[in-house]
């Protein structure tokens, strides 16, 4: 029996692509086209596959590298670029394809021409923050008859950036609050931070053994929506390491000392907190004066 008040479920996938050129991929040719090309082809195919699932499904693609982040689709360029679509191809697929290629080209060119020497890790945190803002906007703009089911798919090959810890944690907690599921597809390396994020939001984390099969993994694991994932046999969840890293050596600690003012973690007891410069009271037990022993009377 159909519920008359059932709202149409609109699934929104925001793909966050880490386009930091890993030297390993850029120089490895495969069948004439480079690995990077294949990765981007797979991602566009995945995006179009998602749009094909239902007519009101939505897509957003954001790319980032170590210099900047950029909205690839929907494109922020005001001018509508003309795109050629093959006869019989759905217009939107051609638009996605053309916007993504053009945007990625601009992003990579910016990276090469910009001679600014600030070394930075990949700006994944910023890209995920923009994805969440976009999801928030779509949620507000959607009419009441639609119910939005948002999720974010992060495709990355970079290691964790410890300096962006705060940004990542803020993004994860916001996603948890807004019911956004964060999935992660890692090529090449493992990322502890993204593992924590997937665990916090209830998403799927996958470390791909071979990048050549990226499209297969994306379509198999990440295309189904979270509500039907329980019916599918997916890769088992990894045990997440929730230990904290101490602020002084960045080593993972089992038992640490936490400053009560700023909550920074230290591996050893010290007199002053280096983050907030507060002095700590030493908790020494009070020294009890030795009682003079009374000689027991022997009777």
């Amino acid at each position, binding site marked *: 029996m159909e519920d008359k008040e059932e709202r149409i479920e609109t699934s929104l996938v925001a793909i966050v692509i880490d386009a930091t050129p890993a030297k390993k991929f850029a120089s490895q040719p495969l069948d004439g086209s480079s690995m990077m090309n294949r990765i981007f082809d797979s991602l566009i195919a995945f995006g179009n596959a998602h749009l094909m699932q239902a007519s009101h499904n939505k897509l957003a693609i954001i790319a980032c590298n*170590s210099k900047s982040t950029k909205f690839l689709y929907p494109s922020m360029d005001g001018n509508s670029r003309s795109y050629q679509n093959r006869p019989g191809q759905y217009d939107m697929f051609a638009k996605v394809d053309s916007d993504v290629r053009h945007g990625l080209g601009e992003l990579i060119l910016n990276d090469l021409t910009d001679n600014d020497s600030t070394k930075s890790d990949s700006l994944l945190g910023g890209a995920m923050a923009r994805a969440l803002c976009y999801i928030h*906007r779509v949620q507000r703009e959607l009419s009441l008859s639609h119910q939005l089911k948002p999720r974010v798919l992060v495709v990355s090959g970079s290691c964790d950036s410890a*300096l962006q810890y705060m940004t990542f944690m803020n993004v994860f907690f916001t996603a948890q609050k807004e019911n956004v599921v964060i999935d992660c597809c890692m090529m090449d390396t493992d990322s502890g931070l993204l593992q924590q994020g997937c665990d916090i939001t209830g998403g799927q984390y996958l470390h791909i053994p071979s990048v050549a099969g990226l499209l297969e993994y994306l379509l198999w694991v990440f295309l189904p929506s979270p509500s039907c994932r329980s019916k599918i046999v997916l890769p088992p969840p990894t045990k997440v390491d929730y230990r904290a890293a101490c602020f002084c050596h960045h080593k993972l600690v089992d038992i640490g000392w*936490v400053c009560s003012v700023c909550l920074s973690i230290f591996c050893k007891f010290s007199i002053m907190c280096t983050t907030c410069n507060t002095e700590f009271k030493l908790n020494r037990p009070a020294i009890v004066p030795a009682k003079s022993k009374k000689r027991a009377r022997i009777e």
Partner: protein
Amino acid sequence: MADEDETKEYRWESGYEKTWEAIKEDDDGLLESNVADLVARAKRKRAALKATGAIQLGMMRHLFVVVDASACMFLQDLKPTRFLCVLKLLEVFVHEFFDLNPISQLGILTTKMKRSEQITVLAGNQKKHIEALQQLKDLSCEGEPSLQNSLERAMNGLKNMPAHSSREILVLFGSLTTCDPGDIQKTIKALKDNNIRVSIIGLAAEVRICREIAKKTGGTYNVLIDDHHLKELILSQVQPPAVAGSIEASLVKMGFPGGTPSVNDGTSDSSADHAPAYCLCHIDSETSSLMGPNGYNCPQCGSRYCELPVECKQCGLTLVSAPHLARSYHHLFPIKPFIERAQVPNTTHCFACAKLFVEAETNVYECENCHQIVCLDCDLFIRETLHTCPGCASDPVTAQMKTN
């Protein structure tokens, strides 16, 4: 706060406040955009007041909630009755409190028949408190409340707490009278000596002794206007309060269980760590859960627990996970308010959500550090929920954390 009230006139003594003139129709004769604009402005103002920079906040909080259960709580000025309305809002409060202050502890007391009773002890377990609140719904409200008895009882519970924690009492007081056994001034003095902050939310009218208690202990006293205002007042207590400066800082020893043994670390993974074991959190109850390898082992004594945060019953070590501490970090690094300015001709889209700026939007917001432009909705979202500026996070210079 009370000083201002004494020098100012009462509201009926000052002239008429023509509040209807603030709302004007726009060109099409519609009021919606105007009302939405006013609401957004009010939100921004409140958010801007909060972001005042690095004040010392009490992160580890020990809070007692005292609920008035006297006869006046059966009045129906809040639907369905005052008592039920308060209980429902307290469930939301408990949920939000542990969300925002994961390493804090909460306890619930009620006061009726000139005595006070303890419903739950100070604990960090969210479910126990919510269950207790749900069971309270059947409680009959009768008798008179006793402010002094409930404050004394709460104080006994808080006295033994470590000095570095922020000790607070929140009283939801619906009566206009109180029946006390002794001199309440002595209680107030004792509260002050123990550094306990008392905040009171009045459900009926302003009571002078409540104003005095709140003022002397450094808390707040508010009387509600309607049920939405009550929700706002209760939820405003969720935010960590600024510390008066007399709290001693100390290093607290905490354990971080749940680590996967990695080859680099050198930590040994004994098979006992993942063997099925009874968890210590359910060992007292009749339905003890036999757990598989899921669960957390205390690093100091090895006892098993189902969920964090928890205080180890065996060795007394507080067990938390890193995200619990990270939840409070955004208070320490607040974002500066964005500058409001008229539309800039070069930027056509909002940086955060890629929305096209239409002519009707008069104001856009710019971040001081990264100079990116965002729209009003993104500004509110960033300020209230995200706590990170996407522009600063997308710029390689500002993305790195300043404190290391």
